[in-house]
């Protein structure tokens, strides 16, 4: 039974990873116009970095799904927009805005949702398999 339930754990790590990804996407969208952050700079686009997880259980290698290794800040350039009326405009009237592209975030979100659903399907499939195994000998 242990290995069947481990399969569900693998899929649940996938669910968590994709949900976290959607969280970051939402943060990016919400802060797409934020010019002031704690470090004084405009908001930088955040991206999760995924890593495969394989654990060592008593000398055996066990597949354990995926983890978020770190939150990566996109180093690409800020958007420069001419707006002298903006409170954070420099002496030439230019404002640095976050490097968040809304369209790209939307596309990312669709992909994350699809990946999330695939992991949910995996859990349902595993559940069906366990249920059918329980029917043996009935």
């Amino acid at each position, binding site marked *: 039974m242990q290995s069947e339930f481990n399969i569900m754990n693998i899929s649940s790590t996938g669910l968590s990873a994709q949900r976290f990804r959607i969280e970051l996407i939402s943060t990016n969208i919400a802060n797409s116009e934020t010019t002031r952050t704690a470090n004084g700079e405009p908001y930088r686009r955040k991206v999760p970095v995924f890593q*495969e997880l394989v654990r060592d259980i008593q000398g055996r290698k066990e597949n354990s799904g995926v983890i978020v290794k770190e939150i990566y800040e996109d180093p690409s350039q800020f958007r420069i927009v001419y707006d002298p009326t903006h409170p954070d405009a420099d002496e030439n009237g230019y404002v640095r805005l976050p490097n968040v592209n809304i369209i790209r975030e939307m596309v990312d979100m669709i992909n994350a949702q699809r990946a999330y659903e695939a992991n949910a399907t995996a859990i349902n499939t595993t559940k069906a398999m366990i249920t059918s195994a329980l029917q043996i000998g009935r």
Partner: protein
Amino acid sequence: MAGIFNSNFDTLKTAMDVQLKRQELHAQNIANAETPGYKRKYVAFEEYLQESKMKLKLSTTNQKHLPTFPKVVNAKEVVMKDTSITNDKNNVDIDMEVTEMTKDALRYQVLSRLISMNIDRYNTVLRNTR
């Protein structure tokens, strides 16, 4: 006691174990479908089964002996495929993965049905011999 159960059970059990391992790898592939550099894992089982069928045959000393196939094939391997689909060198195709997973789950359920039917036959014998 073990002698009265035929080799069907062993073969079916091995096949079920393989399908379960496959399911684990499908789950791992789907969970890592967006992980950069990740390569799809799969089980190469049938090829090994064919190979070992050719190599291992019971030697027959009498014309009346029937040659049989090995009961249990332990060749289960996790192999990583060396291809790339996207720029980040991840080669998991989510749609194919989900489809394969569904097929393998059905195979698993078919196998559990077969085991049940095999057990049923013994039950039939036991019930009808009083």
